């Protein structure tokens, strides 16, 4: 299998974990791509997110084959402990990052767009996150979503969202930086017009020195060719992946 095919397979497998199975239908997850990706440190946090989704919908009963081993290897937790933690944490306890608290709102359809928010407070100093939060550096670390990313005053590349045809896009960037907070505003433009807007804030947490709260919000116009049932999960996958890539330099 070529690297590109493996990456596409992983992209699809990760995104599939954000889809909710139809009521009464057992969820079937192919753990193969996740198990292969778990061996690569750069993918491990994303596999952690995917496992967290799987644990969220397989809260009872015996775990599917290989899941317990993968949970132990990626998250360092026994499967029962992981299920218990899953009930009270929106994001997994990454081995690479201490998350103090997190909320992941289910994306909502509003008028002609889908919007969602991820918020997490991490035990990493703002100054250590600021350089990683430069848009081109940040997007390059989310390389599952990007091809031919170029770093110019107006960055751009080929955006590869699962369930959506690849699009050549450009990104307008606006940033404000201070000693307590950094704000990043991005507008993603495709040929047909604006595709997405995002507001990202990294802010020192009051009363917790060394901790930073990250709020990542995005509004996307998917268009009619994307099924409404896929818009929310696709955005949730995009947002969570970017938030984690930002928090784990």
């Amino acid at each position: 299998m070529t690297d590109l095919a493996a990456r596409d397979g992983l992209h699809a497998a990760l995104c599939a974990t954000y889809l909710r199975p139809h009521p009464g239908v057992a969820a079937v997850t192919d753990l193969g791509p996740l198990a292969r990706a778990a061996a690569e440190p750069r993918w491990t946090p994303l596999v952690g997110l995917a496992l967290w989704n799987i644990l969220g919908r397989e809260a009872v009963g015996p775990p599917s084959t290989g899941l317990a081993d993968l949970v132990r290897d990626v998250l360092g937790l026994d499967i029962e402990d992981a299920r218990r933690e899953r009930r009270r944490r929106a994001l997994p306890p990454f081995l690479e990052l201490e998350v103090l608290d997190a909320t992941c709102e289910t994306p909502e359809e509003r008028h002609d767009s889908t919007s969602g928010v991820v918020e997490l407070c991490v035990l990493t100093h703002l100054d250590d996150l600021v350089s990683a939060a430069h848009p081109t550096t940040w997007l390059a670390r989310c390389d599952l979503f990007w091809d031919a990313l170029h770093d110019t005053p107006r960055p751009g590349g080929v955006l590869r969202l699962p369930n959506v045809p690849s699009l050549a896009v450009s990104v307008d960037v606006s940033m404000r930086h201070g000693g307590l907070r950094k704000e990043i505003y991005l507008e993603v433009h495709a040929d047909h017009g604006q595709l997405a807007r995002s507001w990202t804030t990294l802010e020192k947490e009051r009363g917790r020195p060394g901790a930073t709260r990250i709020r990542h919000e995005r509004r996307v116009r998917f268009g009619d060719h994307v099924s409404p049932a896929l818009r929310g999960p696709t955005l949730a996958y995009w947002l969570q992946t970017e938030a984690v890539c930002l928090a784990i330099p």
Partner: protein
Amino acid sequence: MPRDPVTFPVRRATRVPNRRIAPGDRQSRERAAIWSAYFHRFAGWPHGRYEVPYGLAPMSCRHAFETLDGMDDARRATIRRPVSHLLAAGWKPERRHLDRLAGIATTATDATTAAHEAAARLRPLARVEHVSRETLRAADVPPPDADPSVPGRSRVTIEDGAATVQLETWLPAPLERVAELIQPKNWFKLGHFWRGTELRTRPETGRCDELLEHYVFDWNAVNTQEFIVHLSVDHGEQDEPDGRKTVRTDYAIMYEEDDEILIDDGFAQATHIPKREGWTHYLGEKKIKFASPLLNFMSMAIVTMLLENNAGWLMDALRAQDRRP
């Protein structure tokens, strides 16, 4: 015949086996008087003090007031809140106290008041509201039309067994001067209770972000308790597009050398708001939990005392700078 100084054991026997307190230690008596005012307000006056162990029994209200009244005139802002808490606790000043009370109230309100009105003038300074944790979290800078002459207030809550207090007030000084004082290296200038501080660079972070504090409580005129706290601190400032500027120091306990304090977190935030030239909005928060269950019963009073004392010293320090030639 002169009496020998009384010697009492100190709880932290591992480091300081005994501490002899000279009867004339003015600073200790002042600390004890401040603590006594907060004890009476939060733990109940007048009989509450007989129900705590001897070592923690505070001064009487009268004794506390007379000790506070003997403090340096440059410490008026520091005295006002403890005195207002004595009044709010139900203490009735005697006739001979009224003139002094009026003096304190006059300083507080900048108006000449009759002695019998002084107590009424001081009462708003003792405002304490019990609120939810969410209310404290939501607290931020006030709208531009807020009135800086309204006395500050303390808001308190209990969360996970730890007392949390937030104090919001306006300071009559530009942000630059307040900002300098809320830097961790200058904290020792901001209260009765600091014996010393030292800012250190931590090898693991490479930043100058560890503050060692030597803290002293005098529970009464003879019993002292010391804490040596290692805090993680972080200082930053932010310019906002609307012209506001915020300076904040966050802190959280790493450890107390005898593990006597489990939680000691908070922040001090100063904000310049356009249209309020010459004023700075101050927001301070502190959360504390002791290892001792007895101290935890009184933690609300202790943490309110610490925060209000800091704000009082901040005000006095700014006035002292104004008086300098």
